[in-house]
């Protein structure tokens, strides 16, 4: 069966089966313990399934169905995400045991995972939209898990952003289909047909905005610090590490690298640059390590958007794989940094591991981050842009030093339950993967040789931003106490204002409705409509 890869099928069926099992009370109690098992088939798929493995559900032959395909880009992200889901699942297990909301958490977890894994495999727009939506909506449950006021607020903001992103995505997809012969929905064919689309500009705008919302490009990032600060550590880890990559894979899949329309590359790159620096700037004023990491995500996704934008400008097909590689590293490193917050990593040798991971984001030599930075240097290598890339590395380094400082100074973000040995091992494994996975994948990219990485010049190139960052941090030390530290997402007082406005608006609508539903008004409206409709019909 050429079109039915068993691993691929198992990747999706296992989470679904687990979800189905949640319908039974006895099974439901056991599910939280088994969460970590669920991404195993996905991990195998990513490792063993051949490039181009396909899965087409039978219904697809009738018309609408779901079709999946694994390629190198998808496999990298799928593997990294599955690994993170697995280890974060191990981590979550300890905290969930016999807590009242465990089953609900497990359901949201499984749904988010299902959506997240599926989105890397989707081969047509409907499938993509399905899994993208599942992951996005289910993440709401993870964010509001502890039902505290900040969590509910974060959930509300997140849902607003997500639903708007979904709507824009759907609009973009419909425009893509409308421009495709026979209104096909295969991702390859619609992206090819985009060049001839009469709505090319609108389509690009909708898709880029939708995915930018998902990856939190400034100014569409407002939900991200709130959500990651409010979510439990395990959830924040998978959301920031894995779930956000749905937006990255979206950009990779749907940007027309082969025949890019003018200006969109510049726009995306510019937005990415703004995000890259804004994230750092904003993160420096936060004290909560979770919030700092969230802003780091804003910044890192900005870097990624810049890479994709530059690739689009240059019509460089390789951009996809490079961006995927960078994202793969980010999956693992951001996931493990979040998990570090719950295992008392602020002391002893573990602090050094955290430091290596954190500075890896700035390209610390001999880490996975250095490879990731090296890979994206290619599209970013020319002149002024190269300088900006270096500056971004410096900025990342400064932010990460700040994070380390917050980690050391702040008490554990989630003191109870105590860090178990299992949790620490899971975390350590993940930290190892941050080096091992990029190292294993890097040669396959065939971008450059190890020699080009380990030469003295490249090592120096990677190291000096860290040194500069460290020096700046030391210099900053003296001001530290004077700096105003802001609460997570405080600049988002806007959401209160918006909430108030929408509440006013809602009240107005309710008032209108009550008025319209009075008998004389409604009956008069009836007569009025008869007259208006007759008038409209007579108007020829």
């Amino acid at each position, binding site marked *: 069966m050429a079109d039915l890869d068993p691993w691929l099928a198992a990747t999706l069926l296992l989470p679904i089966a687990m979800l189905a099992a949640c319908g039974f009370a006895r099974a439901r109690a056991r599910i939280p313990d088994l969460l970590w098992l669920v991404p195993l088939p996905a991990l195998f798929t990513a490792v063993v399934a051949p490039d181009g493995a396909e899965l087409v559900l039978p219904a697809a032959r009738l018309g609408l169905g779901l079709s999946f395909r694994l390629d190198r880009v998808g496999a990298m992200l799928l593997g990294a995400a599955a690994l993170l889901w697995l280890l974060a699942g191990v981590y979550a297990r300890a905290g969930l045991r016999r807590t009242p909301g465990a089953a609900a958490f497990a359901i949201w977890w499984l749904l988010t995972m299902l959506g997240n894994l599926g989105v890397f495999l989707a081969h047509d727009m409907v499938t993509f939209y399905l899994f993208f939506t599942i992951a996005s909506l289910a993440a709401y449950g993870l964010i509001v898990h502890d039902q505290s006021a900040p969590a509910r607020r974060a959930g509300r903001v997140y849902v607003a952003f997500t639903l708007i992103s979904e709507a824009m995505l759907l609009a973009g997809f419909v425009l893509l289909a409308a421009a495709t012969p026979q209104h096909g929905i295969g991702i390859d064919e619609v992206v090819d047909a985009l060049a001839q689309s009469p709505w090319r500009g609108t389509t690009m705008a909708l898709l880029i905005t939708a995915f930018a919302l998902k990856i939190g490009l400034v100014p569409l990032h407002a939900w991200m610090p709130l959500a990651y600060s409010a979510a439990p550590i395990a959830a924040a880890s998978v959301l920031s590490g894995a779930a956000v990559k749905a937006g990255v894979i979206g950009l990779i899949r749907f940007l027309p690298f082969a025949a890019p329309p003018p200006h969109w590359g510049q726009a995306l790159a510019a937005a990415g640059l703004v995000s890259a620096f804004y994230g750092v700037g904003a993160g420096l004023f936060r004290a909560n390590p979770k919030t700092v990491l969230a802003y780091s995500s804003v910044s890192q996704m900005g870097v990624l958007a810049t890479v994709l934008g530059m690739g689009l400008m240059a019509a460089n097909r390789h951009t996809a794989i490079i961006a995927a590689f960078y994202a793969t590293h980010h999956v693992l490193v951001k996931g493990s940094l979040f998990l570090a917050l719950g295992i008392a990593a602020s002391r002893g040798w573990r602090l050094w591991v955290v430091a290596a991971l954190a500075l890896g984001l700035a390209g610390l030599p001999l880490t996975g981050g250095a490879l990731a930075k090296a890979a994206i240097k290619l599209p970013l290598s020319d002149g002024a842009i190269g300088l900006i890339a270096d500056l971004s590395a410096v900025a990342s380094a400064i932010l990460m030093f700040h994070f380390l400082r917050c980690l050391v100074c702040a008490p554990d973000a989630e003191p109870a339950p105590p860090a178990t040995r299992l949790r620490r091992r899971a975390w350590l494994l993940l930290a190892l993967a941050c080096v091992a996975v990029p190292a294993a994948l890097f040669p396959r990219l065939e971008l450059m040789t190890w020699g080009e990485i380990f030469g003295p010049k490249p090592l120096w190139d990677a190291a000096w931003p860290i040194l500069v960052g460290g020096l700046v941090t030391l210099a900053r030390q003296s001001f530290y106490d004077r700096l105003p530290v802001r609460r997570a997402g405080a600049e988002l007082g806007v959401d209160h204002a918006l909430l108030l406005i929408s509440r006013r608006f809602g009240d107005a609508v309710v008032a209108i409705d009550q008025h319209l539903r009075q008998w004389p008004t409604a009956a008069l409206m009836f007569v009025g409509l008869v*007259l208006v409709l007759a008038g409209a019909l007579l108007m020829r």
Partner: protein
Amino acid sequence: MTSALAFDLALAALVLAIATLTIAAREAMSAVISFIAYGLLLSLAWVRLRAPDVALTEAAIGAGVTGLLLLGAAATIGDRQAGAAPPLALMLAAGLACALVASGLAATTLVLLPEPAPTLAPPAMASLATTGLGNPVTAVLFVYRALDTLLEKVVLVLALLGVWSLAPDRVWGGVARLGPDAPPRAMLVFLAQLLPPVGMVIAIYMFWTGADHPGGAFQGGAILAAMWLIVLTARLADMPATSHPGLRLLVLAGPMLFAAIGFAGWALADAFLAYPEGYAKPLIILAEAGLTLSIAATLACLVAGPATRTPPP
């Protein structure tokens, strides 16, 4: 022709005046009373429009039974506060809108209708012979458009079910209360003894003649219902309980008989609700007989309303 015109003019003016009175009356009771007068006058208009069948129906059901129903309701509710009248601006807007609608409809009927008017009278008359009936309206009701009539009987039964369903749970299947609790007046009792035999004769005549002359099941049924209601109001007989199998059979026999004849037509003649050659008239009279009784029972029960007392043991 001018005297006829003058009569029509006077009639129309009177109808409109009484209608205005009905709408504008201060008290519910006077509105209902003028509505009954309005209905009776309107049946005169129907006579003028050469529609005696409709005139009879309007008088019997539109004015008669409806009037009884509304009288009862008005007597119970009276003019108790039902919310304020809408603000003046809304009244004005409503007046304007209704004036627009009325003038639009008047213009439509007076100006836009085609000449010569399309009519189905020729085919209806041409086929009349095959039905054996003399009254084309009855032919339309029971032959050409029998499905409408059948469904409308179902509507009537459904309305009765709807009314019955408003009984509180504890008195379900009980007896409907009719009229005031006070003992009936002697005059009413006298009337209730005098009228029903006459009414029944008229009703039977109406239904019987309906095949060939104006009249039929509706009108006959309505008169029977009225007679029954008089008897009930005068306490000469008791309303049967709504769970009484006999009452339910009475209500349902007509529609079910009609449906059975329809299905028999499917089996024996060519089509559902077709009548076998030569048997049309007897079958229609049979159906009408059943329907007259059922209509009488249904209308009376509709006027009597839902049960208010528990069924007798």
